[in-house]
């Protein structure tokens, strides 16, 4: 499940991110929020858990200066972050 993600479409990546989020907080509709952090749907400790999950699942290393609230504000922002780190951008 964690291999070959770079070959998959961005949409599939977003589906996997939603799946990870749902595992953490199944009761929340993450797609309906325009800012998950500001809306209080993701707190600082959940960001910590997401970093750990993303690094493990997508085989990336998220540097400290990328760990800003905006990077976790939406599914698209998280996908962009992962895509950027996967391609070394």
């Amino acid at each position: 499940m964690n291999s070959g993600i770079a070959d998959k479409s961005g949409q599939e990546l977003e589906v996997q991110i939603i799946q990870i989020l749902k595992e953490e907080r199944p009761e929340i509709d993450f797609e309906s929020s325009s800012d998950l952090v500001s809306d209080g749907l993701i707190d600082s400790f959940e960001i910590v858990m997401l970093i750990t999950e993303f690094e493990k699942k997508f085989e990336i290393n998220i540097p400290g200066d990328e760990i800003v609230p905006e990077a976790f504000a939406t599914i698209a922002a998280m996908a962009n972050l992962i895509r950027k780190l996967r391609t070394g951008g």
Partner: protein
Amino acid sequence: MRAYFDSFRISAVIGVVPSSVSYFDDEVPNYTHDVSSSYKLKEIMGYGEHRVVTGNTTTCDLASAGIAELISRGLLHSDEVNALFFISQTPDYIIPATSSFLHGQFHLPADAYCVDINDGCNGYIKGLFESFSFLNATNADCAVIVAGDVLSPLVSRRDRNSFPLVGDAATVTVIRRNKLWANDKISIAIRNDGSGFDKLIVPAGGARQKIIGNEVDELDSEGNSRSVRNLRMNGRDVFAFTQTVVPDFLQEIMEVEGLKPSDVDRFYLHQANAFIIDRLRKKLGASADQMPDRIVRKYGNSSSGTIPMLIATEPKGDQILRCMLGGFGVGLSWGAVNLMLQPTVSQGILEVK
């Protein structure tokens, strides 16, 4: 600020903790959060056990036990103490200074300089600067730093952001004029960002907001419950601070000092939590042996006490260690010290009832 000293050394460090242990597993039912997320957090953050006082034990009580223990081991004598710095956010009284109480309790000399410094996670770095500066400005030979906090009474039991982290402890460090390593330079750098003063705060209890007795617990957006009498941490901003400002600062200090990670035997960094230590290891390219996290895992985060707790628990060896000490937290404030430590410095952890 940056400062350099070359004629002083740390000669002994001891940690003191209460014997009562609180386990994260027992605390999980106190939190409103999903149980499985709490256990996942336990693994990531290194939550397991931490020390929490029972009754009215104070930071000063723990410190007294540590000073008495060093005296009983012949590592300190009351009549040789020229200065005592009490670094803590939990003094016995608003008035007078706790250092004055300790001065009286141990019958320190009348010309001993005693002062309290209200500081937390970067407090030990400031305590070292104060001690070296004091010794540098006088012809004195011995300064003592008490650093630590009994913070658990100020933290809500229903605050998952903070309660699992806190560990009550005090430490005692003896600083002496260095007759052995006169050529060994000690460097200290300290920085502050007061615009972040409210990122870690106990809102009530000081002159700005008095406790009137009817403070009620409120649930925050992250599901934690606390009142204005409790410590509150802006987890998001503090976390961002530890991931950006702190590693950049430590890298800068390493460059200024001309040190590569492999040149440093130990990075004794403030034990905020295991996740942050792990991130700092990766950023600085240090191993787990070089940058230990044993204090936060076993005892919890005792603010200014964690760095000296690391020194106190260094496994016995015969090597002189090149050490980079790093503190960061409340203020916001952060700092680093580059110095050498002798293997005989570490005096372990004393448990008191």
